[in-house]
């Protein structure tokens, strides 16, 4: 085939246009994706904030469940009376269950004996958000992995995706299994997944999460991980802390300390 200069230039130009158009199309797709890496701020949710929690297991008392009671009362968490169907926002479990990929051999007595506090990690890279088909679970600009119960269709993909077992499913009507009811927060419906929301309804009005407010030994510290001068950052600077399953790359916002602090 004989290629003239004119034809060559025309083909080159259209190929460049096509390439540029495709690149722009792909870029706009990723920019508006549900998993966009840069969540934008909104009137009620400040940018430059990543809420996190510091759990001081040296201060947490073994027999105490004040934070669990406070959280589950405030959020109308039902008690189905059956461990299989249990709804958990914050709970205690053995070190082996909470840190299954941590070192387990010849475990220190204090770790083997004491149940560890467990809650949603509000990961910086949350797998539950990626799998949710309706965007019922989404990451807010302030790092809270929030659930929009209105949109949850009960597919439980998020429960399969969460590496921490932080999500529970309402197999029955939760309203029929409440011990008491708090009008400040709605209940859920049958067929809806639920989990800890870092008390987004409370921090939105300037209060601390219910568990933090209730803890009488100040074992829980809540704050902005992106603020160098925050109390939580001070704890993370001065204490040896651990995230759960860090090898997964989910980057949890909940940090644990086991040794007593010297500060």
């Amino acid at each position, binding site marked *: 085939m004989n290629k003239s200069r004119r034809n060559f230039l025309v083909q080159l130009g259209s190929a460049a246009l096509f390439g540029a158009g495709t690149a722009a199309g792909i870029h706009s797709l990723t920019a508006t994706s549900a998993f966009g890496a840069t969540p934008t701020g909104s009137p009620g949710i400040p940018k430059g904030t990543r809420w996190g929690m510091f759990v001081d297991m040296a201060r947490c008392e073994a027999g105490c469940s004040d934070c669990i009671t406070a959280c589950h009362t405030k959020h109308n968490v039902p008690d189905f009376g059956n461990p299989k169907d249990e709804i958990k926002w914050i709970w205690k479990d053995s070190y082996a269950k909470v840190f299954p990929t941590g070192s387990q051999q010849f475990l220190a007595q204090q770790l083997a004996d004491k149940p560890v506090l467990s809650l949603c990690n509000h990961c910086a890279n949350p797998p539950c958000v990626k799998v949710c088909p309706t965007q019922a679970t989404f990451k*807010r600009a302030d790092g809270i992995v929030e659930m*929009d*119960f*209105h949109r949850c269709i009960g597919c439980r993909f998020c429960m399969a995706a969460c590496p921490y077992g932080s999500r529970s499913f309402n197999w029955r009507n939760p309203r029929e299994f409440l011990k008491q*009811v708090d*009008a400040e927060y709605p209940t859920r419906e049958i067929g809806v997944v639920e989990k800890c929301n870092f008390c987004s309804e409370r921090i*939105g009005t300037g209060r601390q999460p219910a568990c933090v407010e209730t803890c009488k030994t100040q074992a829980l510290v809540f704050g902005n991980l992106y603020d160098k001068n925050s109390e939580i950052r001070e704890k993370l600077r001065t204490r040896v802390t651990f995230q759960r399953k860090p090898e997964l790359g989910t980057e949890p916002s909940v940090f644990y300390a086991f040794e007593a602090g010297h500060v």
Partner: protein
Amino acid sequence: MHDTLKVIVGLALFFALVTLPFWLGAVRSAPAPAPDLTAKDTQCVEPVAYMRANHMKLLDQWRNSVVRDGDRVYVNSAGKSFQKSLTKTCLNCHAQKEKFCDQCHQSVAVEPYCFSCHLAPGQSLVLTSGSRLTVADFSTPMDGRQ
């Protein structure tokens, strides 16, 4: 082929039977909904005509902006601010949902599922144990309401 009369009578009977509900309805119409309009505040967040036509759209916008954007304050067309809350703002005036929401919803046979999760003060929940839980009034003031 001499069944013309039978066919006509049959058709007339069939037509009468099929349209029976309409004839019955023409005689006795369903009672008109009578929502309780005695509210604490004389002015709703938006004019009544707008609310009557668009309250569902407004509530949908409210829930999305509160849950997804954390934006809890609604500024109405007159520049007045309200907390975006079905239970704390709407129900604060329209105190009894049975006398307000349910009246029209039942009449037009729509079943919004707001209250399968949201709690109305005074509402009674039936537990599996057979006992009942009554929803208390809200303890905190209407903080966003000005």
